[in-house]
């Protein structure tokens, strides 16, 4: 509570020193060796995954060295190389609950240490507060004396017990992280409150979409009817129940309306029931899980993009929809109001009634024809969010972070105890001590000079890396463990 008030009182403060007040030219060409850590990466598909991938690609373009560490997916374990020598470590860690590894703060240390040492990592960048591996990585990186950055992709409430616990954990794991990146201002407020952070070390860098992937194509539309596209995982948080209310309402009123729903999930049952009950099999098409490459083909078939999420940090889906030239109708929750200017999006309250009204106004506008053409919408959206821009801003964060000192163990313990409350603080400082001892043991067992320095496959000195990557990436399954 007290902490939270502190976070609150931080708000009315004079604008702080900006990131790049003392960033001079010689720092612009400082090249970092970054390790992105998250449980969520390809082959798993989603917002976090594509964020990590695109960001890494742009950073590699700017000449940094990037490797990604995630857990093994099925038989995809070991080391793989993606485009431009982006190196991915699929570490064999036990997956506990929907693609998130079990966290014990210890068992992942040997492997992560090996990765950090052999890749000569300078900055550890962890993603997504749902990923236990990311938190472990933050912890271990601090133990090994590396600077850390954390990107939070999700919002959390404060109401129930589970969120209280998770927020406590987040407080602990972020308490000595050098910098935190949030994807929207709402998300920043949320994270500052949850982890009781100083808002100055929290930057807001929105997600981006690749505008070339999402280009409009009006010819694909069937203008004899009006198509509403919904693309999201069919889960409660995405407001599928609202959708199940909207469908019969609107289909009853407008006979020329049809829905195109892409995505898979437990709530699919609900939609199917609605479809059966109202005999809408020809007007409501459930496409099931979509590959990322198919999303655009689905989007361009529609006139309106509907997003019924109940909570969103930064809704990439609506940006994609708008980029394909659709009129976006969305709920006014989370960071969504910040994402698109009002002429591109129609915001409604998260209720069936309000959403139906919003949709009907849009439908009416479409019928009368006073709507912006897809091309114009696309032109407006195209320049808003680009990965290159995201990479530049993230680079600034790195530049700032790599200047900061790393706390020695004693200060770290003190900070833990002072920052995270007596109980959790002392528990986790104990854990930190244990981890430190464990690290010492590992260093005795396998000293750093025995770990071969990896050949750079990206970054400044990466020619041989490309060579090796060209060769090794042929191997079907490099893991022998």
């Amino acid at each position, binding site marked *: 509570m007290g902490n939270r008030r502190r976070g609150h009182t931080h708000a009315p403060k004079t604008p702080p020193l900006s990131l790049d007040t003392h960033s001079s030219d010689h720092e612009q060409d400082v090249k970092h060796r970054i390790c992105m850590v998250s449980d969520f990466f390809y082959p798993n598909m989603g917002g976090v995954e594509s964020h990590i991938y695109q960001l890494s690609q742009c950073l590699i373009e700017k000449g940094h060295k990037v490797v990604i560490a995630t857990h093994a997916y099925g038989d995809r374990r070991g080391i793989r190389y993606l485009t431009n020598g982006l190196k991915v470590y699929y570490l064999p860690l036990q997956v506990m609950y929907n693609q998130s590894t079990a966290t014990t703060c210890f068992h992942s240390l040997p492997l992560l240490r090996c990765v950090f040492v052999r890749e000569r990592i300078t900055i550890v960048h962890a993603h997504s507060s749902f990923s236990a591996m990311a938190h472990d990585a933050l912890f271990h990186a601090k133990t090994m004396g590396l600077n850390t950055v954390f990107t939070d992709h999700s919002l959390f409430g404060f109401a129930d017990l589970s969120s209280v616990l998770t927020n406590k954990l987040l407080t602990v794991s972020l308490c000595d992280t050098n910098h935190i990146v949030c994807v929207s201002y709402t998300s920043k407020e949320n994270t500052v409150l949850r982890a009781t952070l100083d808002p100055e070390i929290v930057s807001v860098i929105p997600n981006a979409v690749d505008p070339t992937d999402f280009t409009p194509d009006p010819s694909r539309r069937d203008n004899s009817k009006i198509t509403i596209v919904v693309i999201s995982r069919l889960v409660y948080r995405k407001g599928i129940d609202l959708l199940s209310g909207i469908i019969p309402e609107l289909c009853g009123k407008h006979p020329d309306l049809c829905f195109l729903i892409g995505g898979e999930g437990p709530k699919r049952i609900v939609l199917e029931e609605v479809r059966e009950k109202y005999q809408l099999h020809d007007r409501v098409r459930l496409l099931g899980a979509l590959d990322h490459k198919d999303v655009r083909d689905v989007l361009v078939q529609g006139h309106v993009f509907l997003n019924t999420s109940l909570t969103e940090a930064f809704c990439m889906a609506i940006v994609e929809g708008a980029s394909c030239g659709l009129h976006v109708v969305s709920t006014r929750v989370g960071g969504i109001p910040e994402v698109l200017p009002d002429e591109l999006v129609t915001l409604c309250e998260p209720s069936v009634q309000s959403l139906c009204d919003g949709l009907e106004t849009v439908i009416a506008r479409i019928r009368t024809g006073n709507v912006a053409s897809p091309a114009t919408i696309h032109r407006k959206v195209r320049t808003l969010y680009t990965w290159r821009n995201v990479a530049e801003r993230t680079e600034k964060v790195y530049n700032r972070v790599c200047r900061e000192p790393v706390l020695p163990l004693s200060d770290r313990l003190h900070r833990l105890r002072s920052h995270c409350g007596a109980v959790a603080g002392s528990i986790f400082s104990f854990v930190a001590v244990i981890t430190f001892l464990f690290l010492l043991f590992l260093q005795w067992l396998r000293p750093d000079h025995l770990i071969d320095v990896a050949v750079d496959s990206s970054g400044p000195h990466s020619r041989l890396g490309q060579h090796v990557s060209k060769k090794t990436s042929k191997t079907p399954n490099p893991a022998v*463990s």
Partner: protein
Amino acid sequence: MAEEEFTDINGNSISLDCQTHSAFCREFTVTAPKLSLRKVMVCTCFIWLFAYAIFFLTENTAVLSSAIILTLAGMMIHIHFVKVDHETLLIIGSLGIQLSSSYASGRESTTFIEMSKLKDIVINEAVYMHSIIYYLCILIKDPAEPETVASVVPLFQSSKPRLNCLVQVYRSCQEILAETR
């Protein structure tokens, strides 16, 4: 050929012996350190003391004899199946590659891979136990469609040399492959 000082991934020193029979026939021999007598002694003594303790408690001489037999059999099995003395990679241009590993007991197991089956020799990374290591491996073509890799044969599996050693072997193998393709 010049012998440098190499170590395996655990820091034990190994020796790489590379002799050139002709321009397109080379033989690399990685020799692991010999079975250290001290270690053998220690473990034998340990087992026997343990056995003697049991014997002391239960006045049963079968324990002692079984312990002796156990140690002997264990040593036999170890030197015959586990302990590899040296591994050899014989590459003959346009004919094939022959891997042989000879155990401490002198047993030798050899496999020969023809050039037509072989796709390439690469240095690869893998997660091994709780660390990530480099290893040299042969890619075997899939006979049906030659562009894909059917299987991977790792080299120097028992004595795991470090990268510098692997790179040396890799380079000269690539030379031969290049000139006899």
